[in-house]
């Protein structure tokens, strides 16, 4: 497979745009899945996954052909998703004042921390609960957990994708696991 990818990349570099379609076809599910688990929203995931492929195409000349293409592609996609999560953040600042109210903050807008009524929980598919809890992870734990347990990548590959030392990746995975344990132990 690596040989095919290399061949296609060389064709793309020569200006053959159509050779890129095969690369997209091979990686689209993995990249889309990565984006969906990071963002928790199909529409956004599609936008980001598309953007990742477009950026990879535009910058293909800067890709070192001796390296693994998937690592490079995942890095682009992960960075896009992290940027997206960070940009969305201001919407969720809980201590920000709600416009049009006098001194009310977002804290007053969210329901108290009690569990949802029984029937509502039952309506929610297990899949959705798990995804919700992944989405509730802080972004720095979410990316390592998704890469490790959904994309099933090795710790070394994750450290390359996120461009951070292996030790940092391990620490984040440990903390991510503890956070998941807290959130999912009662499911």
């Amino acid at each position: 497979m690596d040989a095919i990818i290399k061949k296609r990349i060389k064709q793309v570099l020569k200006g053959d745009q159509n050779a890129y379609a095969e690369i997209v076809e091979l990686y689209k599910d993995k990249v889309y899945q990565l984006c969906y688990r990071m963002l928790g929203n199909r529409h956004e995931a599609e936008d980001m996954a598309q953007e990742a492929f477009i950026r990879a195409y535009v910058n293909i000349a800067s890709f070192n052909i001796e390296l693994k293409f998937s690592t490079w592609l995942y890095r682009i996609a992960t960075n896009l998703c992290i940027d997206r999560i960070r940009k969305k953040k201001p919407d969720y600042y809980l201590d920000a004042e709600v416009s049009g109210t006098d001194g009310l903050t977002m804290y007053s807008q969210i329901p108290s921390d009690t569990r949802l009524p029984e029937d509502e929980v039952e309506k929610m598919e297990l899949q959705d609960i798990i995804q919700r809890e992944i989405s509730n992870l802080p972004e720095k734990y979410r990316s390592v957990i998704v890469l490790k347990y959904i994309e099933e990548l090795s710790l070394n590959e994750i450290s390359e994708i996120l461009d951070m030392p292996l030790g940092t990746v391990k620490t984040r995975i440990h903390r991510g696991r503890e956070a998941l344990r807290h959130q999912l132990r009662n499911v």
Partner: protein
Amino acid sequence: MKCPEKYIAYMHEYLDEEISKEDALELKAHLSKCGDCHRHFQELEKSLALVKSVAHIAAPGDFTMRVMNALPKEKKKVGVQRWLRHHPILTAASLFMVLMMGSLLSTWNTEKALSVSKQPNLVIDHDTVIVPEGAVVKGDVVVRNGSLRVEGQIDGNATVINGEIVNGEKYMASAGQVTGEVKEINAIFEWIWYHMKNTAKEVVNFFEDNESAEEQSLGVAVFL
């Protein structure tokens, strides 16, 4: 009772599959004794199993098509360059044509003075070249930027470039006689055509000469 932190660390080392044999045995022994740690470990394993269990979702069917449509269009320049790379002979041929045309046009434009092929009995009067009555000019006569009046005889072709044959009758009804072709060239395309024909003729002549030379040498060989 609070267990030492190291057991939590061991659990994560175990999950990363990086735990040493001794530590694994120690962890196992501890988990069998300590209910809290055992539950902690089970909760970790359960949450990971849940995360791994989420169905793998596939990208929408038209995903690839949409990406391809959203890609920046290939630059025209790239297309042209690719075409040139793929058709080197056509490229060379068209370049040659351009240069050729350029040189022909420049000779057409620059030569304004009267010029005539060198034959001893041609008479030049201002911008008219005269073949005197009774004279026989041997070989082709070429006049540029001037007229040609034939009163005698030309033993060959008569060509007038950017001028005319004054005797009026091109087709030799007059007193003058031309044994070969009579041609007037005034328009630029005719000029180019004339040039190409000349070049072609020269090439053909060259080969024909070669052939006849060969035949001659063969003939000589047979004769000997």
